[in-house]
């Protein structure tokens, strides 16, 4: 019974990891860019929410309405002004620039907010639980996070495959040169993709901040979790990414159950195992 609880907890946090991963996979899919500052941007979103809730007295969950557009705008500007200039055949510039960005964000946050641990308070919903029968209880907050993850990933899937916007992303990802011939401005498409990624990050960041303590140094670990979820799931579809997140979450939960110090390591080992036996991931894109 205890193990069922463990699995459920793992699945629920897997949704959060899937959201970390979705933003990462989106960017890589559209412009072959891996944003090393991804995790730090998640933490940045948490701090933006902190500032917003302090200033306006909002519930953190409501603050998403403000945080998401703010982060999206940051993402658009970031891509348009800085990262677009690094795109090209050479691997080093985007990697090094986003790495530099990661350092800047971490230390900037450190300067502004100190290394103190913070947490967002979402009120009564944090301690509410639902019974699932037979002595199993699910926290309302974790369930909400998981449903949010489903909603986000589902929306992304719909966006990508059933809207003109998504068509533009897929076309630009396929062939940036010919995409221009369709009237698509690559600079704008890439910047929009980054804006979208940061909007997803915003939701993930706020949920993370409610769930656990956060401080400026938390970024790299989130990047790694997102990255592991992407690799485990495979680069095929958003649902694969969800599966990857869930598997990572469950691995970590099992590891934590065995020994609390083993939580993160268990996730790493699951990732390495997948890398060893099925490097293309569990649900890779089937090449046409």
């Amino acid at each position, binding site marked *: 019974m205890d193990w069922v609880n463990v699995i459920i907890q793992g699945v629920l946090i897997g949704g959060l990891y899937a959201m970390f991963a979705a933003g990462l996979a989106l960017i890589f899919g559209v412009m072959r860019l891996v944003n*090393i500052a991804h995790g730090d941007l998640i933490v940045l979103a948490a701090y933006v929410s902190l500032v917003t809730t302090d200033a306006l007295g909002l519930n953190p969950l409501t603050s998403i309405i403000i945080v998401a557009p703010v982060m999206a705008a940051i993402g658009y500007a970031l891509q348009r002004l800085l990262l677009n200039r690094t795109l090209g055949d050479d691997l080093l510039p985007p990697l090094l620039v986003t790495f530099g960005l990661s350092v*800047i964000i971490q*230390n900037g946050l450190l300067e502004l907010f100190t290394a103190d641990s913070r947490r967002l308070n979402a009120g009564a919903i944090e301690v509410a639980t639902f019974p699932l029968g037979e002595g199993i209880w699910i926290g309302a907050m974790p369930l909400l996070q998981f449903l949010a993850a489903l909603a986000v990933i589902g929306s992304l899937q719909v966006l990508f495959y059933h809207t003109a916007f998504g068509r533009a992303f897929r076309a630009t990802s396929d062939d940036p040169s010919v995409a221009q011939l369709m009237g698509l401005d690559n600079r704008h498409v890439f910047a929009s993709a980054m804006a979208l990624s940061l909007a997803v990050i915003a939701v993930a960041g706020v949920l993370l901040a409610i769930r656990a303590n956060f401080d400026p140094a938390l970024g*790299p670990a989130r990047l790694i979790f997102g990255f*592991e979820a992407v690799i485990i799931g495979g680069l095929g579809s958003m649902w694969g990414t969800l599966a990857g997140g869930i598997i990572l979450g469950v691995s970590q939960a099992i590891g934590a159950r065995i020994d609390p110090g083993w939580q993160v*390591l268990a996730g790493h080992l699951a990732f390495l195992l997948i890398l060893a036996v099925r490097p293309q991931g569990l649900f890779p894109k089937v090449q046409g």
Partner: protein
Amino acid sequence: MSPAFHVEHASRSSRIGTAALAVVLLVLVAAPAFTGRDDLRLMSEIFAYIALASLWNLLAGYAGLVSVGQQAYVGLGGYVLFAAAIVAGMQPLAAVLIAGLIAAAIAVPVAGLMFRLRGHYFAIGTWVMAEVFRLFASQISTLGGGSGISLPASIVISMAASRQMRELEMYWVALALLVIVLGAIVLLLRSRYGLALTAIRDNELAARSTGVDVWRIKLVIYIAVAFATAMLGALIFLQRLRISPETAFSVNDWTAYVIFITVIGGIGRIEGPIIGTLVFFLLRRTLADLGSLYLLMLGAVAIAVMLLAPKGIWGFVAGRYRWQLLPLERRLRFAADTRTK
């Protein structure tokens, strides 16, 4: 019967450069005679960073393996040394070599896993690997677990006759390691493998189509760099007399700084890391009080360099004046050619 042509490596500027370096080396060897202990330690640190940056440069700038996880081997080297000295009672300086060998052995399966990832994903994968090493290290209670361990006084004393002798020994070993690492890199780049590496750096697909065994060369480079990095790590922590998972596997100390040094100095040129390290330490001297602001500025400078002068300081300067510090050019000289330049 002599060949109709031969390959010349030196140029006028590199002859001057090599001579200058030889003089500098002599000065450095003799340095303990006129510098104090603190300065010797600082210089050892500078030697270590030049070596680490040169190795990262070889890996990323020449072999195209951009790793943000080299701290895995720095920490591994440190921990193997402490384990060998404390648990196996080995002479610490001898254990430096053992650290390198064990790291090279571990690098093989690691490479087997990491090479399944490409490009940016390879980079993050190496980071994950370093985290795995760190987490394992914090589980080893005999080596202090999560809080780390200091080198027992008995072992420290056994290293040399006096404290001064010990400091001298470690300084010269640090200098020797630097010379060996740089020398090995220069020899490698001058050899056929160096030519293959330059080809890989310029265009991997084209290199493969001319018969270069890209995968194997990358593997060999990866293992060699792991070997050298671990030895450097072993020496670094030997000098510090204390190790902990956080310091041993620190991304900031062993990757961020190294990357910034190489980018600012100039990637893909052997002189880059040397220039970069000197600039870095100069900045540190003047700005270290600023704490996190210092790192922030470093990040901003690295971004600016990457966008505006992607070849770094040395790349910019050398590109303009066609300078070379070390003889690494390749020019064909035909037997009948009597030109001198």
